[in-house]
């Protein structure tokens, strides 16, 4: 079946521009996660949705970052007034498990954002 898809795959933005990154999770997956991965580093958590509810946004680096999942499926990560330090790969992951023990997360290919 189809995996997690993200668009665009690459985005170049001029400093100060707003960008919107889209994530289509695996159909039926309840949980959706956004991570930011800087070059040569591991992914870092940004935010987490269970259905349409944003349960944890503690990883968002500033109030310029905003995420939504209004119908509990597709999610959009928006970055306002982009800065050079926002350049990174943005990864989306989804998971179908709601149990309390663990989640195996399925990751999309990522969106590589370059702010010039």
């Amino acid at each position, binding site marked *: 079946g189809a995996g997690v898809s993200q668009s665009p795959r690459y985005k170049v933005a001029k400093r100060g521009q707003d960008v919107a990154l889209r994530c289509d999770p695996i159909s039926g997956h309840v*949980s959706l*996660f956004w*991570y930011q991965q800087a070059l*040569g*580093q*591991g*992914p*870092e*958590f940004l935010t*987490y949705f269970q259905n349409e509810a944003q349960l*944890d946004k503690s*990883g968002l680096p500033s109030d310029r970052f905003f995420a939504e999942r209004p119908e509990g499926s597709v999610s959009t990560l928006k970055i306002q007034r982009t800065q050079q330090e926002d350049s990174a790969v943005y*990864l989306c*992951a989804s*998971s179908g498990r709601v149990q*309390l*023990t*663990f*989640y*195996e*997360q*399925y*990751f*999309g*290919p*990522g969106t590589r954002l370059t702010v010039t």
Partner: protein
Amino acid sequence: SQQGEEDPQALSIQEGENATMNCSYKTSINNLQWYRQNSGRGLVHLILIRSNEREKHSGRLRVTLDTSKKSSSLLITASRAADTASYFCATGRSRLTFGEGTQLTVNP
């Protein structure tokens, strides 16, 4: 911030050799996962080990966990060129906290 560290940061071996990567973490855990990332397939889940397990196998992968030392190791046996990738350990129930990764290069 990263949960822990992988060791070594980079590893280069010949095809057929075994590769061992280590991960240390800071807080108590319920489980620890290993992921692989390469340019072709993105970030892929490899194996999960629960905190009450000491060793787990999956194909050519062997993972150990020592909760007293807050460390885990991933062994890949009989490595192949296709194993070339970055390997990350991750902890957490929902939000995952990743280490900084080990870049493994398997030379044909």
